């Protein structure tokens, strides 16, 4: 699944085989206890999550091969793990040939430096359940979804060749419709920032890309009617002790709107935000879809406070999205010059 997903977005990949020293035992590192710290509350009594937070990390979502039983690394192993990941992710590398070089796009100055560091708890994956730290096996797709996926893969192949037919061949992020603002929130190469605002009865989460906010009522009101469909769904929150629990439904049914192209009719997501210390929120999400995965799975990503030293800035996207014109106009010129899209070999 992940390999197909990767090819479907047409990225050039440099497969890295990294050797680790023999990893002994399964020493599990217990989280450090800060018995004296208590969550501050807003004047109206809700746990205080307000601030600007960053979720960048190099810890992969799924546990890398060869580490299936090892959830947490020792300090020495963690340093090595971080170094290996950073070497693979850094944009300052110029090796690997011209294709790899051009695909790295820019240098490290444009990237979020925090994405070269692993999580402080030294986990080997962001996924905490299932215990092997991997996305669960996939359920076979229905014929309709298979066809839809094949059509999208064709569009992605056209895009990857630089020859998209029209703007619909481009992905939602390229079109500046949604980017990292659709739940669940996952780290990316830059602008991994979220600002949380609170008021009586609400928690608002504003991701940097693309300038939207989820304004989440915590007063127990029902969801909007089931025929109302939104790109970011409809979220409802409640406090479970010091944890904000958010359920989101009413997603649109367009392809690619739902995380990993799961089935919008049966996809469910629950997110949990817990402030664990002055500088940290633990963001945990559980997703399930019996039409996509054989079981639910959960990941936890720590968020680090960055304000006031660092701020979130406006991320306008559609307004100056010259890239779309370059991609489409460029495609028309190259077609005139006789270029064609290489035939896509369907995945088995």
């Amino acid at each position, binding site marked *: 699944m992940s390999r197909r997903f990767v090819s479907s977005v047409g*990225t050039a*990949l440099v497969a890295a085989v990294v050797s*680790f*020293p023999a990893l002994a035992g399964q020493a599990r590192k217990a989280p450090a206890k800060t018995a004296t710290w208590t969550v501050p509350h807003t004047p109206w009594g809700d746990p205080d999550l307000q601030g600007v937070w960053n979720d960048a990390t190099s810890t992969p979502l799924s546990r890398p091969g060869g580490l299936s039983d090892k959830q947490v690394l020792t300090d020495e192993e963690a340093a090595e793990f971080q170094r290996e990941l950073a070497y693979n*992710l850094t944009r300052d590398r110029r090796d*690997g040939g011209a294709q790899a070089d051009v695909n790295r796009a820019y*240098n490290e100055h444009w990237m979020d430096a925090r994405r070269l560091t692993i999580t402080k708890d030294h986990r080997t994956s962001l996924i905490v359940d299932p215990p092997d730290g991997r996305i669960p096996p996939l359920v076979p797709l229905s014929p309709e979804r298979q066809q839809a996926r094949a059509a999208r893969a064709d569009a992605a192949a056209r895009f990857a060749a630089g020859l998209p037919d029209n703007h619909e061949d481009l992905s939602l992020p390229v079109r500046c419709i949604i980017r*990292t603002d659709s739940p669940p929130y996952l780290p990316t190469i830059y602008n991994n920032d979220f600002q949380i605002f609170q008021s009586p009865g609400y928690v608002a989460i504003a991701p940097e890309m693309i300038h939207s906010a989820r304004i989440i009522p915590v007063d127990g009101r029902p969801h909007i009617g089931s025929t109302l469909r939104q790109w970011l769904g409809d979220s409802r929150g409640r406090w479970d002790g010091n944890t904000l629990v958010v359920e989101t439904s009413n997603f649109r049914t367009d392809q690619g709107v739902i995380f990993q192209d799961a089935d919008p009719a049966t996809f469910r997501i629950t997110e949990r935000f817990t402030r664990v210390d002055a500088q940290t929120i633990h963001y945990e999400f559980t997703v399930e879809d019996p039409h996509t995965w054989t079981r639910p799975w959960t990941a936890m990503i720590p968020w680090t406070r960055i304000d006031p030293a660092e701020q979130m800035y406006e991320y306008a996207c559609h307004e100056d999205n010259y890239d779309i014109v*370059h991609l489409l106009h460029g495609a028309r*010129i190259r077609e005139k010059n006789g270029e064609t899209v290489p035939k896509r070999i369907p995945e088995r």
Partner: protein
Amino acid sequence: MRTRLSFVAGGIGALLALAATPVVAHHAFNAEFDANRPVKFRGTVTKMEWVNPHAWIHIAVKKPDGTMEDWMIEAGTPNTLFRRGLTKQSLQPGMEVIVDGYQSKDGALRANGRDLTLPNGQTLFLGSSGTGAPYDTPPKKKG
């Protein structure tokens, strides 16, 4: 005993393969910019667009025959630079920059700014905070 660790990497691939929205896959760079048409030139900044999703540096380049060409150089999100303390004052028209990149496949005077430096060799937008540990050398392998 060696434990082989293999995972798909390469900058874009690792996290993005498993990410919700493939933000950088948005730009199949080697599909739009030609690996076989590297460019390296020195030019004078005429305009800097501090915009998303990509900043654009407009430079005037003097060709060997003396005529001028206007190039547009694509860069990353300016928001990262803002957080490093840079502002629109940090790159003014008239400054000289050296562009190391790859030209657009359709032949337009447009390039991917793979590496941007000043004539003195300093990386453009280095900023006071730097980039942290240098990760561009392979880590030492342990036996």
